[in-house]
């Protein structure tokens, strides 16, 4: 799980242009949206794409899947459970 968390952090930095950030700067349990990393709705769409492209998992952007986007850890847990 920790390796997957590191990997997802790096994908986020690359896909979202988190300039000057390293994986060590991202707290796996901090909220992705709002206060934490300060991501927005466009970033959410980019995260959906990166999960689809890297792990072959399609996530619908609905209320039911919202908890998946809570933090890097919740995202990694979802990927671990659903990856093909």
């Amino acid at each position, binding site marked *: 799980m920790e390796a997957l968390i590191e990997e997802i952090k790096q994908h986020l930095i690359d896909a979202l*242009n*988190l300039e000057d950030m390293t994986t060590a700067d991202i707290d796996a349990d901090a909220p992705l949206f709002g206060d934490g990393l300060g991501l*927005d709705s*466009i*970033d959410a*769409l980019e995260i959906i*794409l990166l999960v689809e492209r890297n792990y072959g998992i399609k996530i619908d*952007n609905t209320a039911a899947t919202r908890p998946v986007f809570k933090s890097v850890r919740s995202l990694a847990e979802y990927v671990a459970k659903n990856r093909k």
Partner: protein
Amino acid sequence: MNNQKLIYLGADCLMTACGDRAQTYAALEAGVSGLKQDSALGMIAGRIPDCPSVEGCTKLEALLVSAIRTVCREAGIDAADPGLGIVLSTTKGNIELLSGAILAEGDVAEQIPQRAFLGSTASKIQEILGLAQQPLVISNACISGVSAFVVGRRLILSGRCTRVIVAGCDTLSRFIATGFESFKSVSLKPCKPFDAERDGLSIGEACGAVLLTTEASEALAPAVLLEGGAVSDDANHISGPSRTGDGLFFAIDNAMRQAGVDASQIGFVNTHGTGTAYNDEMESKAVTLAGLQDKPLNSLKGYFGHTFGAAGVIETLACAEEIRRLKVYGTAGFSTLGVPCPINVSSESVAIETGRCVKTASGFGGCNAAVVLALASLGDYPSDEATIAEMETIASYSLDNGDQPFAEYIREQYRTLGDANMKFFKMSDLAKTAYIAAENLLRGHDLHADYEERDIAIILSNRSSSLDDDALHQRNIDHLEGASPAVFVYTLPNVAAGEVCIRNKFKGDNTFFIEDAPSSLCEDYTRYLLTRGHAKAVIWGWCEQLGNNCKAELKLSITK
């Protein structure tokens, strides 16, 4: 009575998914949608059934040339008339030409074909029609068409033109289709504006043109006036509309003030109504803020789809027809209201008593626009646009990366500002250029201390529109992993102005012109806004970026 010039809508021309002018109005009358499953794009779309062809022209140019020719012929005016101005509204112009031209790697700036530049389209149209003046191009996202009416009206009121043809066009492309798909905002079914089950927009193509003139035409009775128009920004988010509807409300409110009317004098409202969850929700709030929630209200996107740069033109023309017939067309696709504020939408057409409407549009970059149209026979004429102030320029700032690589230059500039805005590095290079120039220009000026948010405007122009980012999107869809929402959202030049508005909470007019080189256009337009009371502070000037080069020359002017 005052000395205000009255602006009439003259001869017009329409080409939509429903057909030509007569076929389009017959379809609106009968409630028949032109949206169909489009085999080329693999989605529902509104495609013009029979496009005209003109030798040496692309599809987009041929549509515009034919529409402008029709208007000149029917109005009996000479295209070469030196007093005739043409305002072109398009978001993407000849964007199809990027397909095949943009390669998997290399400097995109060297791969963009000359004819993909909007100025090249304007020159082509000028050459074929023999126009005295080169058309003025507005590329202001989805408000472009309504914005073109606002600008066209001001060109006449300022005396710059004696009459103006407003022409709008965008054509279907993989570019637009893939972009909106990546945004998850395309519905699998024909769009359902304001409906409880709406789940996205339908894309479309269309072309429309109309003469704005100070002379009423007997052939077009009853005469319809363009009484007022205004543009605003909600300064909320580049792709997410305001949660309160305040930005659109400011545009509606300013347009109604110019028309000299209040809500009781409005007969109906034609909204943008795209069928996306957030747009329609925001519009219901703005219309309610303006006190128009009980008026019959419709969206025409269910007939033509969202036709981008054409939308504001063809929908405003449909409004004029509704005013002449005293009838509001039904909203195709609508059955059950699903927006937070109770507004008066109907799937069936409704008779009205007052021949006056508010037409709105909203778009990426947070921009909003509204115009007021009315039967001339109503007689309560617009308020005078008198000169009430002088303009004073109080700051200027220029930047130019010269020979330094853009990425290195702009990073250095950002570091010098010393702020920490996480959003900066996600912006397109054009938006970064505008952001850095505006931050430096505004240093030491606290505009909010002296002015309301809605009185601070931004008027920009450039040559390359958003072609740098457009080429990146084309590369993504042709050669890389597919469309990226973060790239696609910046494929509109005014989004760069939107970033400045968001950063600084500026909610006044914002207009983005495309011109071959810096001219007096932005300054003249700024002077009009400031001296006629439409803004109290304006950030204006040139903001260009393509490939490795950026150049901005911004000024800050205020009323004196």
